[in-house]
């Protein structure tokens, strides 16, 4: 499920990893090839290549502001952002999809955040409001954060640890249903709302759960060790809320700012106008340069018009970019081959991996599932979806932005990207299956209709009769999410919440989660895998854990074959010539607005 697009229920998550001690850790995540737009490279030779980098855990020294200056940048002007969809949530605690989180960077701050070097694109997790990424004790169950001095809200009110605690308490409120639930689950268990009903109940979480020994210190006591905590503290909801300005559910339309910009005007689905927050002190902020005086975020701009506007850059579109919307597939060949776009092109991996799920409760023989894997025409599907600029061929469950990525290819798909019907036939014969008839369900949109025809033709070569069923796209996830759905094959996507497979393998492959609406779409329920998930989650050395996740992913794919991965998604689009300092936030899979300036 992808959470990058609000019209499709999708999962965008970020990734996390940390050592119990605050030593620097490199996660071999593939990420931000850094700056683009002529500042630090970009598109690559064929205009569609993305690069692989790492996310490191920074030190206290890395967490000191101000942010690294962009060469040649200056303050002033209005930057424009074109968004395909409206913003569903402005309340940072409700933000989950990457669009909400990346726009939230402009008006909300968290305990930690990703510092992106505008020259190299190197991504480092650092303390944002906090002085560092956290100190752990009690075997990783307790995490302590100290707030930097001089932090204030948009009205000049100082930020205190009590407000951070209040921010965490709000996560328990009954209206906070859309945001990530890691922290509250880690603090109070799966039934966290039964343990505590939020600050509006008149009660506060006891010190044994969250303590604030002084105005600048906050101590989180988890039920179990959570080495990923520094990354979870970079999620949008891991920040303070000022009780006097808390309007409960209505905060979702008008949050109070502690970031470089405050909300000047918001018309849902139409426009979000941000102007400079005079009380934001850049000396406290290692992440945000905040060069433009204003951000004018235009919402609900349909494709392909959005891409066309960025390509043509008429009027103020010269100073425009699309933080999360990749180019329309119809325009990508033109952009990829046009020399005039090269200097303002961004082509980077996103955290999303797209797969075709094989319903293992219906297709029970793994040899049949492997036959489908061999017969699958991944190259044709990639072409039907817009080609390499939209995404690279995927052969693994874990994408290139995640720690431990190795691009395993157990079925040799890259050697036979058009499918190997002979091998598929052989496996079906071994399984004793003749006249195999399967049902493929797809969202009733033009591109998925094309893919349906592509699959039908490729599977027919392997002797598989693929029946296709179109589902109204608004009902798609509801229907394929049902345990007893009548389909054998259906597509979903998944993005890591932070660059660790802890946010990929357990939610998509743990058979104990199977229920209507859960995210183990293939209904895999392998006792070995379930036990392995429990084992790997307990590993506190994140480098070691990353290796173990990768091994488990390879085991699942090779032995259970519950899904057919086919694409590592990419952000691929141009921005206006009038903008500089355009860098990329790989954990969020979006342009990083923090370094952008208007030329």
């Amino acid at each position, binding site marked *: *499920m992808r*959470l990058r697009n*609000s*019209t499709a*229920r*999708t*999962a965008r*998550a970020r990734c996390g990893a940390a050592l119990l001690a605050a030593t620097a850790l490199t996660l071999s995540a593939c990420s931000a090839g850094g700056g683009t737009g002529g500042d630090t490279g970009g598109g690559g030779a064929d205009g569609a290549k993305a690069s692989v980098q790492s996310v490191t855990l920074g030190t206290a020294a890395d967490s000191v502001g101000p942010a690294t200056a962009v060469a040649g940048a200056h303050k002033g002007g209005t930057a424009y952002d074109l968004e395909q969809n*409206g*913003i*569903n*949530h402005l309340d940072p605690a409700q933000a*989950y*999809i990457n669009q909400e989180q990346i726009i939230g960077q402009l008006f909300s701050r968290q305990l930690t955040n990703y510092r992106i070097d505008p020259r190299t694109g190197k991504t480092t997790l650092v303390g944002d409001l906090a002085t560092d990424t956290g100190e752990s004790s009690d075997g990783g169950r307790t995490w302590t954060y100290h707030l930097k001095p001089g932090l204030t809200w948009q009205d000049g009110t100082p930020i205190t640890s009590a407000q951070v605690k209040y921010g965490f308490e709000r996560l328990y409120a*009954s*209206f906070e*249903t*859309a*945001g*990530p*639930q890691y922290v509250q689950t880690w603090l109070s268990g*799966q*039934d966290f*709302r039964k343990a505590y009903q939020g600050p509006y109940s008149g009660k506060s979480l006891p010190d044994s759960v969250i303590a604030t020994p002084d105005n600048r210190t906050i101590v989180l006591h988890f039920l179990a060790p959570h080495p990923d905590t520094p990354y979870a503290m970079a999620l949008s909801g891991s920040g303070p809320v000022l009780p006097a300005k808390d309007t*409960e*559910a*209505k905060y*979702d*339309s008008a949050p109070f700012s502690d970031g470089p910009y405050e909300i000047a005007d918001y*018309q*849902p*689905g*139409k*426009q979000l106008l941000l102007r400079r927050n005079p009380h934001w002190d850049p000396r406290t902020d290692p992440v945000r340069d905040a060069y433009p005086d204003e951000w004018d975020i*235009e*919402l*609900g*701009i*349909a494709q392909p*018009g*959005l891409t*066309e*506007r960025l390509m*043509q850059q*008429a*009027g103020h579109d010269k100073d425009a970019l699309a933080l999360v919307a990749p180019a329309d597939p119809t325009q990508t060949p033109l952009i990829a081959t046009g020399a005039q776009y090269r200097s303002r092109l961004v082509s980077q991996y996103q955290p999303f991996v797209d797969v075709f799920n094989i319903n293992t409760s219906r297709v029970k023989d793994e040899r049949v599932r492997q036959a489908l894997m061999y017969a699958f025409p991944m190259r044709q599907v990639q072409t039907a979806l817009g080609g390499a600029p939209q995404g690279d061929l995927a052969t693994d469950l874990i994408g290139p932005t995640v720690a431990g990525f190795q691009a395993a290819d157990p079925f040799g798909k890259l050697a036979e990207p058009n499918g190997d019907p002979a091998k598929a036939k052989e496996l079906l014969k071994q399984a004793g299956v003749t006249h195999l008839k399967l049902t493929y369900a797809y969202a009733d949109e033009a591109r998925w209709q094309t893919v349906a025809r592509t699959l039908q033709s490729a599977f027919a070569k392997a002797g598989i009769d693929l029946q296709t069923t179109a589902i*109204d*796209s*608004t*009902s798609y*996830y*509801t*229907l394929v*999410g049902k345990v007893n759905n009548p389909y054998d094959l259906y597509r979903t996507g998944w993005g890591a919440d932070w660059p660790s497979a802890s946010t990929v393998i357990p*939610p998509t492959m743990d058979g104990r989660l199977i*229920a*209507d*609406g*859960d*995210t183990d779409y293939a209904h895999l329920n392998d006792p070995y895998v379930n036990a392995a998930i429990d084992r790997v989650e307990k590993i506190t050395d994140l480098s070691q854990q990353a290796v173990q996740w990768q091994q488990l992913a390879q085991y699942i794919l090779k032995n259970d074959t519950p899904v057919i991965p086919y694409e590592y998604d990419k952000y691929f689009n141009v921005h206006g010539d009038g903008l500089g300092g355009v860098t990329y936030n790989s954990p969020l899979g979006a342009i990083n607005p923090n370094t952008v300036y208007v030329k």
Partner: protein
Amino acid sequence: MLRFLVRRLLGAVVILALISALTYLLFFTLPSDPALLSCGKNCTPANVALIHHNLGLDKPVPVQYGEYMAGIFTGRRLPLGNCPAPCFGLSFANDAPVWTILSSRYPTTLSLAVGGAAVFLTVGVGLGLVSAWTRGSLFDRLASSVSLMGQSVQIYFIGPLAIYLLVDRLRWLDPGADPDWSHDPAGAVGGLVLPCLVMSVIFWSNYSRQTRSLMIEQLAEEHVRTARAKGMGRGYVFFRYALRGAMGPIVTLFGIDLGSVFGGAIITETTFGLHGLGQLAVAAVTQTDLPLEMGVMLFSSCAIVLFNVVIDASYAFIDPRVRLL
């Protein structure tokens, strides 16, 4: 006249009630669950149940409908906050009051509809009149051909073409933009010119053809011939006698087309990146946002129904033979 208006307005209320009930029921015939669109990765049964409660979907459908309709007049207290009258609910997608969203959107659609109608009536009827006046001439034949072409094209075809030529290449016109009449009236006009022109193309051709044939028909009528025989000037008879006779069917056509104008607004707004009720309707449907769907549907239906009452009433002025009962 008063009796006519009261009767028509009461009829309008019944129509709107039927439309609202049908929209509400249709929503629940789809298998999609709005809670699954907003729970993201947290679609545990407990979280989904909580979202159902927050959205009011845990009540029986007739109760939900009754509360929704009553809320329009009385306001409501919802799990996600107060919603003062006129309460069209809170958007499932972004929790904002639907009335606030509608209020920020209708000026665009209204401007587009008025501007577009002004263009297609002026150009369409004008071309039809000139064609009828110069029947059989080169102009008449050319106008007929152009009208036929106009009738054959679609907004989503000529829209991008017009943007490419007139905005991106020649830079003669501004790209489409939402009007801000109170702060930037000049900019509002500039941003509407192209969308109104493009939207009008698919309509004016019909008016031009209709006007031409109606005028030719009228000019062959006996009362017109009599007027001419009595020595009245050609121009006088053309406008005073023939045009008046042709106006009735044209106004009827305009009344019927109003629904299409709103339909055309969906495509026009999407093509030009405008934020009106049409674009809102698409967003509401794709996000299975029931309160927003209801709000847009009721708002648009209300506008169309009321406008048709006005059109019907206008017959009395166009044709004195019509008595409104």
